[in-house]
């Protein structure tokens, strides 16, 4: 799955890192009619987890109420240099991941 995870390469110790994430996903409602007049099955990203060096940052449960191509912005304070790992899963069971390395100075 295509995604854009934007995080600063470096932050000052104790300061928050701004994170922005966009995922290519239709967040299909289960009501949209396709060209062949069938209906696209409901398929949404249901869970998303962000961790930094195995510490929980954000765990999201979501569904049809989130806009297509989900956008999330949040901040967190990295306790040390490391990697932000984001992982998500949709109704069809397809998983996606994105990562960003942040150095604390």
């Amino acid at each position, binding site marked *: 799955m295509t995604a854009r995870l934007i995080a600063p390469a470096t932050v000052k110790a104790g300061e*928050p890192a701004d994170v922005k994430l966009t995922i290519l996903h239709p*967040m299909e*409602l289960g*009501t*949209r*009619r396709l060209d062949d007049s069938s209906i696209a099955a409901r398929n949404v990203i249901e869970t998303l987890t962000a*961790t*930094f060096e195995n*510490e*929980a*940052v*954000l*765990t*999201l*449960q*979501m*569904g*049809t*109420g*989130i*806009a*297509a191509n*989900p*956008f*999330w*912005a*949040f*901040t*967190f*304070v*990295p*306790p040390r240099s490391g990697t932000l790992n984001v992982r998500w899963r949709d109704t069809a069971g397809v998983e996606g991941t994105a990562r960003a390395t942040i150095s604390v100075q």
Partner: protein
Amino acid sequence: MQKPAAQNGHFSRRIALKICAVGLFGSAASKSFALPVTLSAGQRAALGNIVSGNVTFDAAVSLIVEPLAETGNAIPVRVSSPLEIARWILVAEKNPRPIVFDASVGPLAARSPISTRIRLAATQNVLALGQSRSGTWHAAQANVALTASACYDGT
């Protein structure tokens, strides 16, 4: 045509509360300003037993969303708090699935504002619930009017 995403607040009542709270915040006085919220039947039904105990509207939780949305497909929302928050829940009671998101927040992100874009099926109140790390629930609510609902657009 449209005001920038209600940065200057959309409920004058909330602005007033915020101003009041600023001076007294930190002296544990926020509670005396808190308005107990009567959640609507729809909101209670959506929340089931997720939220137990009192929920209060106060300046401890802020919800920013535009009061007039051009389509129901992608409405920017932002929740934030001066408190450390452990959990955020966003409720749109008139959506087919009213819990828009339920976020558990780790200590590293306890003071993080959270922004996303949501779908709304109809003009309605959007409710943001934030649970502080000590367990109390705080709420903010804002009405969003759709100027055209394109939620189920088949283009």
